[in-house]
């Protein structure tokens, strides 16, 4: 399993457009991917799950991938978070 923490820098937090881009880009991976925030964990492949956390700007979230393609999945997540301006680290 690989795990990484991100600080959300988008001033609107994680809202529909970037969340759609993120969720849409990882659906093809086999690994189980979760997004943890504030003690709750959701499936990162679920747009409703991601949106339901109501993540605001400045929050720290934990993303974990577990499966045969976990490394590729994390690399993709890194790339999308930066490209969409959700997080810059």
């Amino acid at each position, binding site marked *: 399993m690989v795990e990484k923490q991100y600080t959300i820098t988008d001033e609107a937090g994680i809202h529909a457009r970037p969340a759609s881009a993120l969720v849409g880009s990882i659906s093809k991976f086999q690994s189980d991917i979760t997004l943890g925030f504030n003690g709750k964990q959701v499936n990162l492949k679920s747009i409703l799950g991601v949106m*339901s956390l109501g993540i605001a700007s400045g929050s720290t979230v934990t993303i974990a991938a577990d499966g045969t393609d976990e490394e590729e999945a994390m690399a993709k997540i890194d790339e999308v978070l930066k490209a969409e301006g959700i997080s810059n680290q």
Partner: protein
Amino acid sequence: MTSPLSGIAASTGIAIAKAFRLENPELTVEQQQVGNPAEEIARFDTAVAQAAAELEVIQQKTAQQISDKEAAIFGAHLLVLSDPELIGPIKERISADSVNAEFALQETSDMFITMFEAMDNEYMKERAADIKDVRKRLLSHLLGVKIQDPSMIDEEVIVIAEDLTPSDTVQLNAQFVKGFITDIGGRTSHSAILARTLEIPAVVGAQNAMATIRNGQMVIIDGLEGEIIIDPDSATIQQFEQEKSAYDAQKAEWAKLKDEPTLSADGQHVELAANIGTPKDLAGVLEHGAEGIGLYRTEFLYMGRDAFPTEDEQFDAYSKVLKGMNGKPTVVRTLDIGGDKELTYLDLPKELNPFLGLRAIRLCLEMPELFRTQLRALLRASVHGNLKIMFPMIATIEEFRQGKAILAEEKAKLLDAGIPVSDSIEVGIMVEIPSTAVMADVFAKEVDFFSIGTNDLIQYTMAADRMNERVSYLYQPFNPAILRLVKMVIDAAHKEGKWAGMCGEMAGDDIAIPILLGLGLDEFSMSASSVLKARAQISRLSKQEMASHTGHILALSSSQEVEAYVKGIS
């Protein structure tokens, strides 16, 4: 032929086409036991695939005909449709309890809807509507009930609806939609303004159209008179086809005036400008030969999205408009939200009287960062054309001074940073609050121009909500009370050597034009499609002669008397 319906003439022209009812069907779900859950799951999978295929078509059409931004909403709907946390539990429910797919869908989606509706963030609450939208689409496939998407219309029709939301209207294709009729709304409602922009006839506030008109029935809309005729006989169709060609011929004649200056019969020049909402409206402005833009409503940049537009996005839009106008005057109104115009991502407290509440300049002064971002974008764009900045809803001189001081600060910062800014930007105000009209002589010493916003000026002067059909009789542009205020504003401007314009609906009205010409209005700003008609009318009027009537007109006692008198002299 059924007896005619009527409503408010919201956009001129005549259309004859089949009716297309845009309705929201009732989709009722009952719990049923199924004998074979595996088959039920397969039925559900089919419905998901059908809904997805439909959404992909809508997404593509919207991207082609409107914009990628508007299409993005359907991309989000597709993701909901493939959401494992929604689809998985539905299938589990079907197989665990042997219930029908409709019921499992209803129950599972309800859980998410309740969760989003309970969130304390207005933007997240709105997402519940997206889930409902997707559920409706899925249910319609499961139940075999057809729901309509305005973007799927592919033959010439007249759309009949209870009301058209901004998202419905975004999907209307002007190639096929020849006109529309709505049961609610007034001349200044969103759908009415859109009809004038698209130049299709519309009748709004018809009240009984949905109850009366059936799908596929032949319908005539007379957008000049606000008449609707259902199932016309051949003689009536012939009569309206003649009227339609007469109207089209007149439009062709006006088109010849496109590149001519606006001159009255006695050779006096006035400026005819157009009102726009987005850079997309520029084509119409140029096509109709407007001499400038008298009102660029920037709030559309902020609407239909999920976060504030960035300074660069705004800079791009303003630059595009200024460049497109090629040096012609372009009046940009700073953000006018609040009131009836809400932003989903700006969580403002509900107000009892939003039209009298925290809106427009009041909101901008309360949230200065929002205001500064817009002003910086405008200042940076100013080098691309003839920019004039206008503050909306000014009630006191202090508000104007504060707005102008913030503008000066941002300008100084940009210049310090070496970013060029035009040094001839005029700064003016909308006159739409009676206090400002009354104090126009004081304002005139400090502003560069006035633009009278009649829609609000009338509503505030008459204390009549313009969205409320029951008091629409008080929406009286020709009431001498309004005309006297207009005169005060024009006279005050001229006394200080400033100019006065008008950017409300009234500026393009054929009864108002002779009065306004006589009162000395310098600039008339209207829907682009009204410009040529107004230019033709002004060319037949003598300004001096109209001026000789103003004393009499302002002494009349009612709106009806004014209308009757003006009809007699022009």
